[in-house]
């Protein structure tokens, strides 16, 4: 008689709903406090002036995340193809790339690329690449594309090698060419198990991309930093934090819904 050792707790998306409700009440309490304490900033004209800026910052954060993860997925597909080749030097090089980008902080990668590009700008100018690297936003997207490519390669490769060996055997014994077996039999299954870590990758880049604010990019955190610097009102950081929590929560909801939709054939209850 396996009795659950702790109070069972309802699981699933209702948790997010409750977090959302809690957040909404937190926003309410925050606004009330601002009004009661009579402090400037969030409860007044400043807020009206700041909110379009913050929303613009939020938009830029979403843009950086989506662009980097999509470009990272394309680069990751190339890296994955390389990993599946039998030629060892290529495999070793790709492994080294993944270790380098997964083993270092995003801030170090961004500084290396952003300030490093400045150091060798004469060379880059000769190669006609300076127009790209002189813009900090491009450096941020470039950094997170490579970063995300390394993580996505690792996620999908991990899911692929963990598939039962029989799947490959069955596909090949049916006479499917290797490429068809990979793209029509193995990858769809691997992507299904990789869905959750890939969703986490999306929220991770959303959060990690806030280091863009350190190289003068006005993403959500950069905008909040600018507004705090202008008004000395710390409340903008709290507001930005709430927007980040809402954004990450929204991404989780969407990923959960996609996962439920794609795995609906796997469990009779789902």
């Amino acid at each position, binding site marked *: 008689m396996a009795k659950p050792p702790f109070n069972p*707790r309802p699981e699933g998306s209702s948790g997010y709903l409750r977090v959302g409700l809690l957040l909404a009440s937190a926003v309410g309490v925050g606004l009330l406090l601002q009004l009661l304490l009579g402090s400037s900033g969030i409860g007044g004209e400043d807020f009206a002036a700041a909110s379009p800026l913050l929303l613009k910052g939020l938009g830029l954060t979403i843009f950086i995340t989506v662009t980097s993860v999509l470009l990272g997925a394309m680069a990751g597909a190339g890296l994955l193809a390389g990993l599946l080749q039998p030629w060892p030097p290529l495999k070793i090089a790709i492994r080294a790339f993944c270790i*380098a980008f997964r*083993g270092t*902080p995003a801030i170090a990668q961004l500084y290396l690329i952003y300030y490093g590009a400045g150091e060798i700008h004469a060379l880059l100018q000769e190669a006609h690449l300076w127009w790209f690297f002189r813009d900090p936003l491009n450096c941020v997207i470039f950094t997170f594309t490579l970063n995300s490519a390394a993580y996505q390669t690792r996620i999908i490769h991990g899911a692929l090698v963990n598939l039962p060996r029989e799947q490959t055997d069955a596909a090949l014994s049916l006479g499917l060419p290797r490429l068809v077996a990979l793209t029509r039999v193995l990858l769809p299954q691997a992507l299904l198990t990789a869905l959750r870590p890939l969703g986490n990758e999306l929220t991770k880049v959303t*959060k990690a991309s*806030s280091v863009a604010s350190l190289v003068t990019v006005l993403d959500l955190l950069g905008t909040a930093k600018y507004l705090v610097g202008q008004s000395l009102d710390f409340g903008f*950081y709290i507001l930005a934090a709430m927007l980040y*929590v809402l954004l990450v929560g929204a991404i989780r909801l969407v990923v959960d819904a996609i996962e439920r939709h794609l795995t609906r054939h796997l469990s009779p209850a789902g």
Partner: protein
Amino acid sequence: MLQVLQFGPGGWGGELAAGLAVTLALAASALPLGLIGGLALAFATHSRRAWVRESAAALAGAFRGIPELLTLFLVFIGGQRLINLALPLLGLNGRFEFSGFLAGTLTLGLVFGAYASEVFLGVLKTLDGSSIEAARALGLGRWPVLRFIILPELFRLGLPGLSNLWLSTVKQSALVSVVACDELMRKSYLGATSTGDHILFYGVACLCYIAITTASEAALAAWHRRLSRGRSRG
């Protein structure tokens, strides 16, 4: 070009080594904080009281959603303000200054705790309770059951997840450089800006981080194998 990395006067080798030590100290001091915080949050999520459950879940969810850099600002600036607001109420005079290291430790611990609670909750779900029932039947009290049955299992099964969190914490510690904590990333930044050798300094910093993460990954994997000796799976 490499002589700027020399140890001794005129070289940055000693500075970088000192920064590396601070980085390790930052991550290591955040670890106990995060483990205890994570355990507390996980058990609070199983509380009998609804408001404890809901606030623990909301707290962990919030700190999993806020970027670590912003959490650092919230702790560094907001924490300092809160303490300075509270000091007069406690009848104390003077101003409290948060050091970058303290803010960094608190932030990394907070983030580690928020994620560790998720790891612990996942493990708690897989425990079927038979060993707990057996221990209770033997007459063990609440605390011994927790100390000798639940915690060792939680730790052993949670170790892979906790290992990942440790690697994240090492990497996140680089963010603490922005609140003037003299760890590896800030020393590299200072070296890079004063010599102009950005690629060299950030390259060396990256190599140091790779060394820490690969070494701890290998050590933690070996530890997990050791803890799982004599077990068929898990």
